[in-house]
């Protein structure tokens, strides 16, 4: 009994790895700043919410309502900060083996695998948990007003803590199985962002919701989805008891989902989330605990084995040399980064997924659904008769003043010789067709939906490209500082101008194949529409993607990537470590894109601004430009809807002209940053040299 107690004592409270961190906690200035900033933000949210509520404290119910609102704001903020900070504090575990010489020393001590793994994990999660605990007094404010159950507060903390724990466990598992490098840290961040944001977005797709028959016998759909139980933000929303997001009762669920564990997943996704994440953490830790020393002894990595299995790497220590470009710096950025097996896998994965997505959209969009009634060049002008297929009637005469409409727009008799589905028609007393409402054949994916999906696809692709180039640029100089190759280059005749230009050129060349994916996606839609346009020769033809996008889109994407690259290089030059440079530049790029996107969409949506001015300003942001080029009617309706004060053609010309101006402005920005970097390069490097 004493032995078990001793083992458990040494496992956590007496664990020397954990104790070292706990005992030093709070001594680091950086940790104190983060803690103060975290608590400051929580306090700011409390004050802001109270200020917004004004005098709405008239009765107890109002107080409780404000308190609930406050609790929701703080919970979201707390979870957001935990989701942001957990990867930062736990990702270091991924490269601990390479970065720290202490790992081997630990393995050679009598410490057990469990002590090492748990010590490393908890010491990394400790800071985030300490942050959570420090926020409890602020959450206690809600208890003064009432309206928030203590269980909800506990659930909110459990969701945040389990998110931190699973993040740490994942980083530890990656480290133990030797599948991580410094570059993995970025992939790790990216994965977590994509998982969290992707989960929230996919939650809106009907596919992930369950259909059931409600108590009134009417068909209904669950407001929560499969993803609710696996995404912390969605699980958190459940504990707020939001009527628009309530989990179903067991009785409402289809028969197959009424048994455990499905009933748990659906009826109580919040408790399932933190229970499952706790279980998942242990599941990920268990192999590490069992295999830690054995894996440390192995000379090959799981990643190497996997890449060999999928024939992306032969595991050789040699290969045929490639030809080096005249500018070796550009060659290295463009070629050696892209040729690594993992990079190859990701690049091809990106290209294949992106193009597959675009082709699927095009195929769905071009697949016509068989209408009930339609005309197919069946108008005979000589006899003035029309045959409507599916009507079950023979050729019908057409009245002389027939009223033809295509959609909502009036059309001439010539339209009768086209290929349209027939929505409705009326006959006069003589049986002749008096009115006929035509429309384009319905498609598996309508034009509006095709535009929305294509826009979503290109924006996601461009966001990923921006993150990739920001990461690559931010690590490009710091990595050379860290591995010592920068000194070798600086002792050669390579000048700072040549070096920085080479880096910029190489980085842009590195992402060009990726930029080609959204451009090619747009191209196939333009090509498809081009043939339809030739057939119809209609001046008001609705393009899925405006043809001029084939010029403006690649130009804007390339220049935006170059801008992100030069920004990342600035950070890389100024920061001493890769992690700091990556975090700074990704933060700046994400912040700038969010600000520009938000402003851009607000301007496009603004009713107080004329359409032409809105698109002119919108053309300066790559995200809003993509929107204007692909889905203008939904997001820039004021300028692109027919019948508005500015016709679409004018709006397109304005967009094109201002896009060219924006390209010039961005180019000047890049040029000035480039000149500044060249000027300050030697001084910055020498300052850091020691």
């Amino acid at each position, binding site marked *: 009994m004493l032995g078990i107690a001793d083992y458990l004592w040494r496992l956590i409270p007496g664990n020397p790895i954990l104790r070292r961190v706990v005992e030093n906690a709070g001594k680091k200035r950086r940790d104190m700043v983060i803690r103060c900033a975290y608590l400051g933000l929580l306090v700011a949210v409390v004050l802001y919410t109270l200020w917004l509520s004004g005098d709405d404290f008239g009765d107890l119910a109002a107080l409780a309502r404000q308190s609930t609102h406050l609790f929701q704001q703080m919970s979201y903020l707390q979870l957001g900060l935990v989701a942001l900070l957990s990867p930062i504090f736990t990702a270091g575990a991924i490269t601990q083996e390479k970065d720290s010489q202490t790992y081997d020393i630990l393995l050679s001590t009598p410490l057990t695998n469990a002590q090492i793994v748990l010590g490393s994990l908890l010491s990394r999660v400790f800071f985030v948990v300490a942050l959570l605990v420090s926020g409890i007094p602020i959450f206690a404010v809600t208890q003064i007003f009432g309206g928030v159950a203590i269980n909800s507060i506990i659930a909110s903390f459990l969701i945040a803590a389990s998110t931190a724990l699973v993040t740490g466990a994942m980083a530890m598992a990656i480290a133990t199985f030797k599948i991580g490098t410094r570059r993995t840290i970025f992939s790790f961040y990216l994965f977590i962002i994509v998982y969290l944001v992707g989960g929230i977005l996919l939650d809106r797709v009907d596919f992930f919701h369950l259909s059931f028959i409600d108590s009134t016998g009417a068909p209904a759909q669950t407001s929560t989805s499969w993803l609710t139980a696996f995404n912390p933000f969605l699980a958190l929303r459940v504990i707020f008891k939001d009527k628009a997001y309530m989990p179903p009762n067991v009785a409402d669920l289809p028969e197959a989902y009424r048994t455990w564990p499905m009933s748990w997943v659906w009826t109580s996704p919040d408790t399932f989330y933190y229970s499952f994440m706790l279980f998942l953490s242990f599941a990920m830790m268990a192999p590490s605990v069992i295999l830690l020393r054995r894996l440390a002894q192995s000379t090959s990595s799981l990643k190497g084995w996997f890449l060999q299995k999928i024939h992306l790497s032969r595991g050789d220590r*040699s290969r045929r*040399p490639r030809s080096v470009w005249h500018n070796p710096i550009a060659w*290295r950025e463009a070629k050696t980064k892209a040729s*690594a097996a993992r990079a190859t896998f990701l690049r091809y994965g990106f290209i294949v997924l992106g193009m597959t997505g675009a082709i699927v959209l095009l195929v769905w969009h071009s697949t016509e659904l068989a209408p009930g009634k339609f005309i197919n060049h069946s108008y005979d002008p000589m006899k003035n008769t029309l045959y409507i297929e599916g009507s079950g009637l023979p050729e019908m005469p057409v009245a002389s003043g027939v009223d033809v409409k295509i959609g909502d727009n009036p059309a001439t008799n010539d339209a009768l010789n086209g290929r349209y589905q027939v929505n409705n028609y009326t006959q006069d007393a003589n049986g002749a067709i008096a009115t006929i409402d035509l429309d384009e054949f319905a498609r598996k994916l309508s034009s509006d939906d095709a535009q929305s999906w294509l826009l979503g696809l290109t924006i996601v692709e461009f966001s990923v490209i921006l993150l990739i180039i920001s990461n690559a640029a931010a690590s490009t100089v710091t990595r050379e500082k860290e*591995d010592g190759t920068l*000194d070798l280059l600086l002792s050669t*005749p390579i000048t700072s101008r040549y070096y920085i230009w080479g880096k910029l050129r190489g980085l842009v060349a590195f992402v060009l194949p990726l930029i080609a994916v959204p451009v090619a996606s747009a191209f196939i839609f333009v090509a498809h529409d081009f043939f339809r346009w030739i057939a119809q020769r209609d001046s008001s033809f609705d393009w899925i993607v405006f043809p001029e996008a084939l010029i403006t889109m690649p130009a804007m994407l390339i220049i935006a990537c170059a801008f992100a690259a030069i920004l990342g290089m600035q950070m890389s030059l100024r920061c001493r470590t890769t992690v700091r440079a990556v975090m700074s530049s990704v933060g700046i790029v994400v912040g700038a894109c969010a600000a520009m996107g938000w402003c851009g969409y607000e301007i496009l949506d603004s009713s107080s601004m004329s359409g032409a001015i809105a698109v002119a300003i919108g053309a300066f942001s790559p995200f809003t430009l993509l929107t204007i080029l692909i889905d203008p009617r939904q997001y820039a309706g004021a300028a692109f809807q027919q019948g508005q004060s500015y016709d679409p053609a004018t709006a397109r010309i304005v967009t094109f002209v201002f896009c060219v101006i924006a390209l010039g402005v961005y180019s000047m920005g890049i040029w000035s940053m480039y000149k500044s970097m060249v000027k300050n390069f030697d001084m910055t490097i020498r300052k850091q040299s*020691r």
Partner: protein
Amino acid sequence: MAAVIKTVNLTKRYGTLVALSNLNLEINEGDCFGFIGPNGAGKTTTIKILATLLQPTWGEARVCDYVVGYQSRSIRPLIGYVPDYFGAYEDMVVQEYLEFFAAAYNINGSQRNKIVNDVLELTDLGYKRDSLVDGLSRGMKQRLSIARVLVHDPKVLLLDEPAGNLDPRARIEMRELLKELRRMGKTILISSHILPELADLCNTVGIIEQGELLYSGPVADIVRKARAGTVILVGVTRAPEQAAALLAQHPDVDAVAPNNGFLQVSLKNGKQDYSFIASQLIAGGFQINLIREEEVNLETAFMRLTKGMVQ
């Protein structure tokens, strides 16, 4: 002979720390100069300044008559710098690594291929041309570092601890390679802690401590300088204490001390004749089994000239 490397009152400060203090150094064309000093003495700082990677705080450093800091661009094609670590790029094979640096020196086209082949042959790395640089052994990497600095045929080689952490065979191979480069007329500045090898390789050395150059000149001179007085090792078959007492009475003897079973007899300054030792001991009834002057090599000289202080 013209000085290829010359420093005048070269000083480098990092904040309050003085890494180099008024260093005056002159290395002639074709010299192989061994730079010796304890860790933190300022060797790497000096080499980095000469490699144009650092600016001196004051003073002047010249390479081939070009001033570091003002004419660095003219210096870079003339030097080859090997740091005390191996700067490896991921996913590059040996040939690409050399072609990469050849391109950095603006060597392109067929000339580049020829030079890379020649350099690989010279450094015996031809059979490794397709091997990934990351996978090479430490010795191979050091040879590759030398190959790297040879692609542009520099006049001056600045080598910072090129044999550090190498096994004996790799060290011997490295030494032979450097000898070959010296025969080719390269001026070499090499810092190392392996003093016997420097003594074998270099014709001149400099000893630096706490940023100050204690000595600079031919190896033979430093040995002579380190020899503060004549020291004789004497072995007797019995009663060494009595023999020591007997010798200590001689007016030319400064001190007698036991040393590993022998007697270490230090003569007074200026005294070099030690023939009296044998005659006095024989007269005292002692049998002598050894009498020889103590050797002073580079290691001994280094230990005597430096105080082992680091910054």
